[in-house]
């Protein structure tokens, strides 16, 4: 390799390098300081994420490193910032939990950082190899995270389930990748798209379907979603909060990059797959959530549904559609983190609770929290003028502009069904008799809830324009 080539490449991957080296240092600190170091390591991890984010936005140049294996352009930068914010907030939210629930293991922040590093690679991946490498780095860390509470059967079960199924999905993804390589002779996304001219062969299509299935597993789209409710419920709540936000962003980014960049010429083929899993996710997510009593399971089905809605935008395959997906993921992350901050505050004197009915009468015992959660629920349901409405609006508009009326109509109907279970939470909070008070929430949780609720209303109304413009610029770089 030429020295200046290496220098340029290192320049581009500097944020990842900072992350990797920082994580190693934190691991060392944890090992040498022992069990007592959890708080310190968490704090340093957040700082590391912030430094990486600043470096990413202020210093790192655009370009392709290592012969196109890792790319950094506005799209990747936008999504990486989201991922970093998601991870940082999830770490912040865990502080109180680690103290009170004997969860103070320094491995938690370190694993989150490793997983985040994997996500950054996913977001930046320019070929099939980086794709797989990032995906596995991200996943392996999360498998461990899920079962980090070794004394809990549910936590261990969640970890094992996720690991086994994740391995299966990785197998599918790898099989698909090998077929694609076999039929195109290329692993670089841009090179693949150049080769894809004329009628695609059946083998290539099958490869594409397998690879999409592997990615769909990561965003928990139907029918590759089955792990989601069990893992969400079983994993410790801070892990679930982390799992629900950043990894979804990274996987969705990968899906966008793969479909638009590598398989752009085969839009007619892949959109059939996307539409199918989009429809299935929207409908399944909406219906299945109705029967839930556990709020973490509810959020699992909610996320399944939301991934379906986001995919509506992707199926359009246009700049507007991709922009819609980016905005959707941004707003989705804010809503999810806010909601999980509330879930983490659901603590009675005798421990955590996670049933929906435990929220009964929250409006009387903690009106501010109730109001914020009401905002979040209405936003998740897509009620104007909250941000969640705009998220849905952009993807549905993109679908309508691309002529997919049926998809948009079914999406709207599914969101109407979904409204029911969000409203049920609101109803329980405002109209049911109080079921005992929660202990006061930790400061960091209050900050997250407040920030998320205020972001979706009214801050989004003010900053929606610039965010939308940035998303538009990011989407354009993909085409």
């Amino acid at each position, binding site marked *: 390799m030429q020295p200046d080539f290496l220098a340029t490449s290192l320049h581009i991957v500097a944020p990842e390098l900072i992350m990797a080296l920082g994580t190693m240092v934190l691991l060392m600190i944890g090992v040498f300081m022992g069990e007592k170091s959890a708080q310190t390591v968490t704090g340093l991890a957040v700082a590391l994420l912030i430094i990486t984010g600043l470096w990413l936005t202020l210093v790192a140049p655009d370009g392709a490193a290592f012969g196109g294996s890792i790319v950094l352009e506005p799209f990747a930068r936008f999504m990486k910032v989201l991922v970093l914010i998601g991870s940082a907030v999830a770490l912040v939210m865990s502080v109180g939990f680690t103290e009170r629930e004997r969860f103070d293991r320094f491995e938690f922040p370190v694993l989150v950082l490793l997983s985040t590093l994997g996500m950054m690679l996913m977001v930046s991946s320019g070929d099939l190899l980086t794709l797989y490498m990032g995906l596995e780095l991200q996943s392996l860390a999360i498998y461990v995270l899920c079962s980090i509470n070794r004394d809990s059967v549910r936590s261990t079960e969640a970890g094992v389930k996720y690991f086994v199924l994740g391995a299966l999905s990785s197998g599918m993804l790898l099989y698909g990748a090998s077929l694609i390589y076999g039929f195109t002779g290329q692993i670089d996304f841009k090179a693949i798209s150049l080769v894809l001219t004329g009628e695609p062969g059946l083998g290539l299509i099958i490869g594409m379907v397998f690879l999409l299935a592997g990615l769909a597993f990561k965003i928990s789209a*139907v029918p590759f979603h089955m792990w989601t409710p069990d893992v969400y419920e079983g994993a410790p709540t801070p892990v679930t909060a982390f799992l629900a936000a950043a990894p979804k962003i990274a996987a969705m980014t990968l899906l966008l990059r793969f479909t638009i960049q590598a398989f752009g010429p085969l839009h007619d083929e892949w959109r059939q797959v996307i539409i199918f899993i989009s429809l299935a996710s929207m409908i399944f997510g909406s*219906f299945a959530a109705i029967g839930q009593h556990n709020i973490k399971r509810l959020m699992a089905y909610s996320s399944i549904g939301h991934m379906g809605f986001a995919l509506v935008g992707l199926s359009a395959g246009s700049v507007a559609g991709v922009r819609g997906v980016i905005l959707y993921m941004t707003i989705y992350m804010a809503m999810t983190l806010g909601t999980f901050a509330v879930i983490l505050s659901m603590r009675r004197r005798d421990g955590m609770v996670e049933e929906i009915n435990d929220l009964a009468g929250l409006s009387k015992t903690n009106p501010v929290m109730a109001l914020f959660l009401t905002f979040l629920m209405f936003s998740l349901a897509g009620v104007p003028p909250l941000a969640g409405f705009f998220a849905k609006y952009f993807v549905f508009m993109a679908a309508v502009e691309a002529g997919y009326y049926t998809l948009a109509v079914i999406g709207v109907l599914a969101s109407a*069904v979904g409204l029911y279970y969000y409203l049920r939470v609101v109803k329980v909070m405002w109209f049911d008799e109080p079921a005992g008070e929660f202990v006061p929430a930790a400061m960091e949780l209050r900050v997250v809830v407040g920030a998320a609720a205020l972001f979706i209303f009214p801050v989004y109304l003010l900053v929606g324009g610039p965010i939308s413009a940035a998303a538009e610029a990011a989407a354009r770089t993909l085409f």
Partner: protein
Amino acid sequence: MYPTIVLLPLVGFLVAGLFGRSIGVKASEYVTTGFLLVSMILSWIAFFSFGGETVRVSLLHWIQSGGVDLDWSLRIDRLTLVMLVVVTTVSALVHVYSIGYMHHDPHRPRFFAYLSFFTFSMLMLVTANNLVQMFFGWEGVGLASYLLIGFWYTRPSACAAAMKAFIVNRVGDFGFTLGIFGIFVLFGSVNFDTIFAGAAGMAAELGHAGEGATTAETVFTFAGTSFTAAGALTVICLLLFMGAMGKSAQIGLHTWLPDAMEGPTPVSALIHAATMVTAGVFMLARMSPLFELSPTALGFVTFIGGTTAIFAATVGLVQNDIKRVIAYSTCSQLGYMFVALGVGSYGAAIFHLFTHAFFKALLFLGAGAVIHAVSDEQDMRKMGGLRKHIPITYWMMIVGTLALTGFPLTSGYYSKDAIIESAFVSHNAFAMYGFVMTVVAALLTSFYSWRLIFMTFHGKPRASAEVMHHVHESPMVMLVPLGVLALGAIFAGLVFTGRFIGSGYEAFWNAALYTGPENEVLHEMHGIPFLIGILPFLMMLIGFAVAWFFYIRSPSTPRSLAERYPGLYRFLLNKWYFDELYDRVFVRPAKRLGRFLWKTGDGTVIDGLGPDGVSARVVDIAGRVIRLQSGYIYHYAFAMLIGVVLLVTWMTVAGAN
């Protein structure tokens, strides 16, 4: 000045209605009553200073759509002024009276707000310059009537009566609106000036052609039938009259008026005696240029008026509720007014409206004072012997009764005799019918009026000793309005007879009332035989004598009569079975239809297939979907594999196409 008269009650309504709670009861009473008194004084000033030319005061432009061009404007002519005076005077006195009568009620601000709202609507009705504006007032008074009948909304009977009044009036309003539409079709406008000009043109045309001779051109299709100009006019007049029948409680649509007595007594005096129920009379008088062109419609009006007069009088004979007797009396007197309208004697109709407002309001308020005195008892069988205890009220009631029965020189004498005389001389097809009916009704009127007096004030007390112990004269605030109305009941006829129907007719009305060229009723009226002239007076004397015999001389006679003719007695007591008939024919089928649509149509079909059905299916689906989530890892893996297989298969098949 004119807008002030109309709008002051509205201001009073808004103040008492919106701020009644905050400014307090006293302030609400004084504000509304004070505004009404000012309005009354201005009305009288306007009445006497009126120049004769019709004044139009434009307030604002209202609707412009296609050919419809409507203003809010006041039309002030003599007819309007008479109504203004009647409405504001009675309303102001009722406001004052209510301060005493409603003294114990906790919701007085609401009551006074409603009263003022009613007055505003009524003034809007009588000052209207087009039919739509009139309809606004028409519905406004209907609403106020509904609210006031149901004022004591905790009483089921009051709520039922309020609904009945509202629904029965809808029937009439349906005809009224159709009439307005018809007029718009025929004349291209609903403004009175255009309508009257068009009617004058049509009159000339009809006059030239001779009725039904040449103008066979179809102008109008209604209910599948085509009408020529003359026929169309008749249809429109009949439709308008249908509205008047509802509002003025003419036979067929009268059933709501007796029930309306569920409202507080001042309301009965103001709305259900003096003003609102005369809106139909006013409307027909206002539309006299149209009615004059349709002898058929006028005949029908006479027939209905005469029938109502006799029907209501017969029912009034046997009622025992003091307010119901007066209510049927009102119904009967309204019949008189329609007879007068029907025979083309519009002046006499309005004159009777004018005098009737005074003496009937007097009777109602007097009855209110009686009810007030005997601890809210309304059954005359539990009264008696009250004369010595409440002498002022007694003499007020005597004055009202004299005026109602047409005792010479009282106001009723002039107006009622004028109606009977004009019915006698008219050439209308039903004129003679109207004449006979009104004469007989005069006899019955005298009987039931004196029966009321005798049963209430004479004889031995039939109330419990406790009630008798509490009997007391009403406070001054109630007696003063009675006194003012008594003055009106005595002198209104004497003072105004010359202007309303006598030599000053032309100068007084100045074309506010239209009479056709062949209509000579007013002139012929003065040349009637002497015997006919004193006939009403004789009837009154006979009625008085019979009542005296029945209730003073030989109190057992009424019962033995009732026992001898039980069928007739029950027929009258049950008000000719109108309510039972309507209940059987309209109410019950309507309820049955409603129940069917509710239970089967809405509950089973719409809810079942719609909201309930959909939500039940959603729950079913949710339950089934959840069962997929078994928790077994191999199920999950299987689902993923199935998914991939499905997708690959689909792509293979789709790729092959």
